[in-house]
């Protein structure tokens, strides 16, 4: 299934900037960065539980927020891209 992960991490403090980097790294390992703090992650349910748990563990719930959008299996119908940096399709032919 495809999950869209968007996050807002408060970077006023040094710890906050650390959390931002940590959250970004977790997302990068599991998905594709489509915008600055927006990731598309193609995961199976087990991988999702793992990723969610890790993300929730990192953020500080009083200042930061996470938002997950579940696009399901037929996610291709629900996504449209306009403009620069089109990204790749993780299920399409991957030829470099």
């Amino acid at each position: 299934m495809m999950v869209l992960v968007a996050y807002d991490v408060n970077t006023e403090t040094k710890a906050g900037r650390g959390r931002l980097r940590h959250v970004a790294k977790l997302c990068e390992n599991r998905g594709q960065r489509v915008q600055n703090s927006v990731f598309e992650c193609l995961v199976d349910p087990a991988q999702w539980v793992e990723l969610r748990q890790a993300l929730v563990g990192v953020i500080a719930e009083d200042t930061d927020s996470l938002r997950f959008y579940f696009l399901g299996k037929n996610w291709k119908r629900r996504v449209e891209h306009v403009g620069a940096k089109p990204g790749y399709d993780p299920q399409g032919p991957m030829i470099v």
Partner: protein
Amino acid sequence: MKQLLNTLFVTTQGAYLSKKGDTVVVNVEHKPVLRVPVHNIGSIICFGNVMCSPFLMGLCGKQNVTLSFLTENGRFLARVHGPVNGNVLLRKEQFRRSDDLNASARIAQTMVTAKIANSRIVLLRHLRDSCSIEGVNIIRNAVENMMEHLQTLQDECSLDTVRGVEGMAANAYFDCFDHLMTANKDAFVFATRSRRPPLDNVNALLSFVYTLLVRDVESALESAGLDPAVGFLHRDRPGRPSLALDVMEELRAYLADRFVLSLINRQQVRPSGFTRTESGAVMMDDQTRKALLVAWQKRKQEEIMHPFLKEKISLGLLPHAQAMLLARYLRGELEGYPPFLWR
């Protein structure tokens, strides 16, 4: 059923693959052009001058991602292989059956039956779909000839008989293969099967697609816990993936031959995409190879109802399904090995 994971093909010469976190990064001229999480990839296939960091090789081994290196023209060179996984007891049973000629013959018989039946259907389909008069009688003869071979295989026979029948049926099939191509007839001529090197355009396409398919079958067998090198129909030979070749027999006509035929007949490949070298070998150019890989990936995502499992699976998972059924048969959970019969 297992999910069909994507295959990453790297055809850019001089590309460098590295690991970053849990992702695979493809660098071209020191700039990252693609970064993919490793859990979305089932295999990586590198063509020609593509380098790979040792850490990425380690990651692929750990995550069970098949990493293969091929020459620019698609001839297999090497594969990176993680720790051996799967069940020893299953593998030992496979070895015992392979040493037992009678047991081997029984498995080989079902596989060859499926192979002949599937290639026969390729011919029958052509008779049904195309209205050209040319070659119809030759194809009809071959179809009947193959029916006789199928009847020979109905009774119990020795391994040598199975091999003989397989060879004769393959000859009958390839004798009329030329008539199955309807577009660009002067450029795509098929006289006989030639390999190492392929001597005409059609053989170049067939060889390339067979290489891709045998890699898929190999990794499927490995993930089912079987040893791809120990076969039943094909005997052991160092460096030869005999069992993969065995299982491939029943998939050849359906997955590879028909794919090549539709590439040619739908004019997805052009005669200008092939060059002949001095030695007579035929090579594809980069563009043709890319078009072929895109079409192959698309085809693998098509879904069919598996005739034995009665489950909807994508064509790319067909090797996995067959490997799993073969493992079940060897474990004694099934009475016989159910080969893939296309209908």
